[in-house]
């Protein structure tokens, strides 16, 4: 349980950086959703609630030793898979996908929590093994990742599903997977791409990728968002257009500005200066968390931190790249800043585990 002395080992710098990003996010959500011509939106309030709940979840995740969670990780994992199956059949349909379980205050998105669940189960699995993971170990880890991945991809929510891949890769990498195998997997992925193109991807996904390669071929259709994202970011300039003064986000040339494209709006309204601050905060959070992985008293802690960090880092880099129109548009949110309760709570809970590992580095 929570001992008094542990309090002194809490990484306050990380907590403050995380809260700063949350505040930045709420500010940008307020800016993009409170356009008087569209009526005052309460989205930023909802986001504040999510942050409060998320901080609660973070506290819970810090209170118990992380080994308590890893010990129970198979149960958590099974529970999450059950939730994912439930969503698949009984979830709420929005924009053509079943992703949500409607709760009273907001809709719960189990796929966001699956990332933490997979991080826990992989940390436990590889943490109990010593030495370089064998082929069997890799295969088991892969299957453990693929079950929730497949369920999420089926919703369909390919974006979120893909974020589980870095979790597996990162943990396996840290656990000592040979670089040769990593190379082979990369090669296999490359070979599988055309097949996936032909059979697995849906038309809208294909068009997103093909227009990314040449946005002008469909400047008003699928390439529209990408071009608009670039215009949004580029027109921000060095110091930005000012709070609520952005034309691209405010006048809705950029869709879902409060969500997937929140970083574009930041870039437009706060300029390159704002971008540097936000990127700096994210980099600080990631490096600080890597520090926690290094300081961990056991391998399981390191794996757990890296598992949590992997999907987070992947999402941050991908979303920021996409925000500048430099990557195909995908429904991937920016953790800590984008509007979305489940993502916020799951991310903060995940960082609860990171803090947990760091503050218990001296305990046995």
């Amino acid at each position, binding site marked *: 349980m929570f001992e008094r002395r542990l309090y002194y080992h809490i990484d306050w710098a990380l907590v403050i950086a995380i809260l700063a990003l949350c505040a930045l996010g709420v500010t940008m959500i307020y800016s993009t959703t409170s356009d008087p011509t569209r009526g005052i939106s309460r989205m930023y309030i909802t986001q504040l609630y999510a942050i409060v709940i998320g901080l609660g979840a973070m506290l819970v995740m810090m209170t118990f030793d992380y080994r308590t969670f890893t010990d129970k990780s198979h149960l958590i994992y099974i529970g999450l898979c059950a939730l994912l199956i439930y969503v698949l059949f009984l979830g709420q349909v929005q924009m053509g996908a079943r992703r949500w379980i409607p709760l009273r205050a907001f809709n719960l998105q189990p796929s966001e929590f699956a990332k933490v669940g997979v991080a826990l189960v992989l940390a436990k699995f590889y943490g109990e093994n010593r030495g370089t993971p064998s082929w069997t170990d890799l295969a088991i880890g892969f299957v453990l990742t693929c079950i929730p991945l497949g369920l999420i991809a089926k919703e369909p929510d390919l974006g979120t599903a893909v974020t589980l891949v870095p979790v597996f890769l990162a943990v396996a990498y*840290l656990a000592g997977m040979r670089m040769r195998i990593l190379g082979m997997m990369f090669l296999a992925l490359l070979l599988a791409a055309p097949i996936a193109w032909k059979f697995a991807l849906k038309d809208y996904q294909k068009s997103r990728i093909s227009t990314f390669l040449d946005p002008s071929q469909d400047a008003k259709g699928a390439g529209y968002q990408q071009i608009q994202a670039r215009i949004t970011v580029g*027109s921000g300039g060095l110091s930005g257009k000012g709070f609520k003064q952005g034309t691209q986000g405010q*006048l809705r040339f950029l869709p879902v500005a409060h969500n997937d494209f929140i970083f574009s709006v930041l870039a437009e309204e706060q300029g*390159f200066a704002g971008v540097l601050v936000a*990127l700096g905060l994210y980099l600080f959070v990631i490096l600080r968390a890597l520090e926690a*992985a290094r300081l961990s008293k056991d391998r399981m802690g390191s794996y757990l931190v890296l598992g949590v960090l992997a999907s987070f880092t992947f999402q941050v*880099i991908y979303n*920021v790249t996409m925000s500048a129109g430099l990557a195909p548009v995908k429904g991937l949110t920016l953790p800590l800043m984008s509007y979305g309760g489940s993502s916020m709570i799951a991310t903060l809970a995940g960082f609860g585990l990171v803090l947990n590992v760091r503050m218990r580095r001296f305990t046995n």
Partner: protein
Amino acid sequence: MAPQVEDRRRVASRLSVLQYVITVLFSILAVSFWVLQVVEHAKFEEMAENNHQRTLPLRAPRGLMLDRNGKILVDNRGSYSISIVREHTKDLDRTIHMLAAVLGLDEATVRAIVDRHRREPTYRPITVVQDATLAQVAAVKARRLDFELPDIVVEQVPTRQYPETMAAHLFGYVGEVNDAQVASADAGELKSGDIVGQAGVEKVYNAYLMGEDGAKRVVVNSVGREIRTLEEDEPTEGKRLQLTIDYDVQRAIEEGFDQLGFNGAAVVLDPHDGEVLGFTSRPAYDPNAFASGLDRDTWASLTGDEDLPLSDRAIQGRYSPGSTFKMAVATAALQEGVITPDFKVHCTGGATFYGRPFKCWKKGGHGTVDLRHAIEQSCNVYFYTIGNMTGIDKIHKWATLLGLGEKSGIDLPNELQGIVPSPEWKQARFKEKWYAGETVSVSIGQGSVSVTPVSMAVYAATLANGGTRVRPHLLKAVDDGGGWKAVPTPPPLSRAPLDPEKLQAIRDGLYLVVNGAGTGHNAILKGYDVSGKTGTAQVISNQGKERAGKTEKDLRDNGWFVFFAPRDNPVIAGVVLLEHGVHGSNAALVAHHVMETYFAKKEGRPLPPKPEFKANLVP
């Protein structure tokens, strides 16, 4: 313990690798943003501005036209135009398809309009429907809200309106400027899509009438909804024109023609200065149809009509003047001293000149007549005789001085010149010698004489005012926003040195035509000493008429009536021509209604009601 230590080392080194990789990735991101936001900032800023700022044209209304008393003759009404702005088009084919369906138009028609403007800059709206119905506007607006037609603009534009269908050829019509007009205009003066005058006063005074379009820069959101106006450059309305036309005189002319149903023309002038009081050409068209964008079918029916409704008969129609030419012959004979007013000729119903018989219209003949009675009775033999005595050169000289065979110089486009023949003219035209026998025909206004109605009006005015060949004109004053400024009267084109006593003899004859035993009884107006002359000009020779049979409408004679009133110090002069109107006395019916209206208005009496006369169709 060994593997554990090894694990620890590996974890530490692999974490370091991740650290570096992530730091490098973030650096790349930062550089990318720097490139976009700092290096390429100007380009993207412009693109963002193009995104959310639109410049919308604000069409300037054309200047109003008023009659001489300030009554509005031509004005503007608010209408909606529907245009495509290709700059915001995703898929032009789809837009054309949808727009055609929404507007209930033929897709090929819409495509043809778009194709015509294909090479223009994409920000310039292509107007598909000029005068949209409210249903069309509503249909388009509903689709715009559904984001289906974000590239369609509904513009409120002033459209030319001609409240009453009158004087169509005088007002002319407006239409979209064509490429040749854009090319020939001074740089920047006209641009594609402008509405300009294409005929009549609208064309001649287009520079006055056309205002200066304004523009409005607005902020729009992603579906094209206007959020707010950044700046507005108000359009400048075109200058207002006061015409010399008198609304009531004009209406009287139109009523007269409506009542009789003939094609033809009429021009009524103030004989002192050539101000045009009324002007018509029939058949007419509805200029309103042009104002809202003429469709292909209407245009085809106008241009294909055998009656040529687009041609302005008053200035472009050339007709044989018949007996109305006799005053010109009389003037020549008197002024050249060939005869005196008392010169008498004995008419037996015909005479022989150069071995050829020439008939008088009255079979039994007029007996012995002097000039006054020869005009009154329109005795052909009298004029054969004096014409032959005077000779073609002198007839030509004086007819020209009176305004015949010349352009009147009226301020309307494309006026044609009539013909008053002379040996020189014949030589130049046919490379043939003039035969003296031709002079005999010319003396009664037949042969190669052909005149336009407007030149006949000038002729009437010249006889009325004592020899000054005034220049008919339509513009009285211009209001450029700072009040009315009178337009100076154009100077007369020539002055015929007419001896007042000799002219008085002719006027006496003209007075008798209406008030004596002549053919102009229909124009009699008690107390106003109306003077005039009918003319009945054959469209086809008597022999030809017999060959063709008498039933064909097109073969009926044209009827003229030239007039002025009162006889002494006339204040109104003019001409009425009825195509195939059978006889000049029918034209006098119209002239009567016009003069009755004119004098009633002048003296503040109630205007005469719409006339109910009928043409006498017995030749």
